[in-house]
């Protein structure tokens, strides 16, 4: 099923006055897509998911599922599968009864026969790889098992849309990874449309076709992993999706000049002059030997990358370089080259330049090679 959210706003009046939980949120999820909603807590991800399920009313805007307006349609009429963060299993019912609940409450005329329901439950138990636990009660299960039961329960009525609220939140890291892969394969196997809420950006980028980054009740950016990495719409998106370094500076006559010392200027095409912020991943920074440069200190490393502390005077930043490079830079003074940084002005990405392309093609230019008129402008 496809989902379309148009200008959805939800505000609630609490003890501290009116609070906007969602602000003009629009989202289009085509049939069969796996979308992740990410953002820090309080960003409105769960609120959006609950609005799609019909659990919370919207103040304005509308939600369409399969082209059908959902306004006034109760949750039970939407045929949406929902998995709660704490699973919300029925503690007083066995696993089998939990799974068959959605079928058991159907009106007699639509309800499958007992044997059909039993067959369906056994199929679903097979699907979640817990074939022998039908008669167990939820409290006997581990976190991962409960989560799979909650999923089977949500799938029993064959929903076309599956909504998952922080489905991995309560699981330990090893189980988490396994369940993540399994949910992805389930999504493909059953041809579902899936919307997943998570505060873990790694998880989102890993499992989803498309990631929707939310902040303060708004959608900041909506795109696939590459788009978000190459063209993050705002500094927040850049920071949220991974460790990043931030350098304030000026764009002047086609060059970015950092305010801090020991940062190599780099060329930027077609950008208006003025203040800008350059943001870069720690592993994208390269080192340029420079007699007047900064000293390096190795603080650790993993996956063949060394973590280096670079002293910039007023502050120190940590960067990552391949271990192979270490002997060459050991004990030397360096400048940082950040030509693959994304440039932001007034909280938005500056367009007209593809940072990754420039990362590949741009030469790191020595300070001495910069035209004098550029330096004088700084």
């Amino acid at each position, binding site marked *: 099923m496809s989902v379309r959210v148009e200008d959805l706003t939800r505000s609630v009046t609490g003890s501290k006055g009116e609070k906007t939980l969602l602000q003009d949120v629009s989202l289009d999820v085509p049939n069969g897509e796996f979308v992740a909603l990410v953002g820090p*807590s309080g960003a409105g*991800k*769960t609120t959006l998911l609950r609005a799609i*399920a019909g*659990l919370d009313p919207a103040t304005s805007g509308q939600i369409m599922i399969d082209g059908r307006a959902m306004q006034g349609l*109760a*949750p*039970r009429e*939407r045929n*949406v*599968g*929902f998995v*709660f*963060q*704490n*699973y*919300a*299993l*029925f*503690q*007083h*019912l066995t696993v089998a009864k939990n799974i068959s*609940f*959605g079928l058991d*409450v*159907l009106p007699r005329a639509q309800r499958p026969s007992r044997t059909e329901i039993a067959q369906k439950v056994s199929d679903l138990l097979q699907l979640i790889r817990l074939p022998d636990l039908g008669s167990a009660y*939820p*409290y006997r299960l581990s*976190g991962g098992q*409960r989560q799979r039961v*909650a999923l089977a*329960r*949500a799938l*029993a*009525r064959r929903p076309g849309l599956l909504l998952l*609220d*922080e489905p991995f*939140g*309560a699981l330990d890291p090893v189980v988490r990874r396994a369940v993540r892969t399994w949910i992805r394969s389930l999504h493909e196997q059953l041809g579902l449309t899936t919307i997943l*809420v998570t*505060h873990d950006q790694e998880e989102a980028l890993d499992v989803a076709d498309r990631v929707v980054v939310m902040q303060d009740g708004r959608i900041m950016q909506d795109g696939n992993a590459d788009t978000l990495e190459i063209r993050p719409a705002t500094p927040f998106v850049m920071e949220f999706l991974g460790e990043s370094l931030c350098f304030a500076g000026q764009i002047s006559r086609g060059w970015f000049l950092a305010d801090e010392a020991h940062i190599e200027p780099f060329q930027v095409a077609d950008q208006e002059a003025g203040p800008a912020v350059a943001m870069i991943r720690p592993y994208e920074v390269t080192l340029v030997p420079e007699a007047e440069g900064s000293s390096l200190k190795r603080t650790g490393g993993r996956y063949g990358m060394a973590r280096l502390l670079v002293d910039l005077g007023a502050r120190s930043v940590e960067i990552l370089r391949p271990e192979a490079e270490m002997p060459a830079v050991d004990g030397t003074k360096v400048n940082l080259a950040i030509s693959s940084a994304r440039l932001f002005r007034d909280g938005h990405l500056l367009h007209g330049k593809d940072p990754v392309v420039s990362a590949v093609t741009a030469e790191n230019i020595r300070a001495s090679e910069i035209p004098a008129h550029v330096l004088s402008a700084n």
Partner: protein
Amino acid sequence: MNAAGDNSMIRWGLVIATYLIVGLMLVLPPVVVLSEALREGIGPAVATLADPDAVSAFRLTLEMTIASVIFNTIFGVLAAWLISKYRFPLRGLLVALIEIPISISPVVAGLVWLLLFGTQGWWGTALERMHIAVAFAPPGILLATIFVTFPYVARTLLPLMEQQGRDVEEAAMLLGASFWQILFYVTLPNARWALLSGILLTTARAMGEFGAVSVVSGHIPGLTETMPLHIETLYNGYQSVAAFTMAALLAIMAMATVWLRSVFEARALRLPEPDVQEGGRA
């Protein structure tokens, strides 16, 4: 003497003192009641229960108890559901209001019903014209009993339902369950031990109510006397075997109820709590 020895002395002293107080204050009265009832042997004691007024008191008590338990169970479930699952204006006030009967003397409650429904009361004349007797009649007793036992079901359900939150009900809703299906298949089964415990507490309290019923009933033997009232009448009439026999019967009924309740509570505790701790809310 060292500190550890000191401590154990104090501990044992406290244990003995506690048992003494419990024995004197709580165990002695029912024991005395039972021994007084059986002073002339079990035959005469049982014979007093066959007295028509005694039978009538027993029956009235049962009727009033059953009726008020039914009313307060329905009301208590609704109130607990409403208060724990929804946010609405003056919600805190409603919680406080439900607790009024615990803090107000039952006699006051009885007086209020008399003021409203008595012959000289606000609605007394109107009711009389319609030949409806409330004061000095079973309906008045029922009102008094309901008032006194009002909070118990709601109060025992509330903490449990609050702790359970809305998630399971929302899950049921999304799975297609209707309002009533959610109530009967999800909410109540989840709270069944607390509900039973609240019902039994209401029962014990309803059977023993004296003050409110005493004011509103008019003490008419054979007509408006419940067991506690009849006990007083018998005792004041120097029929101490009859009085203590009925008192013993009432005490046994109440203790049986409380015992049942503790059995259910033990069962409820043995069942693990729903996994609310696992994974906080976003």
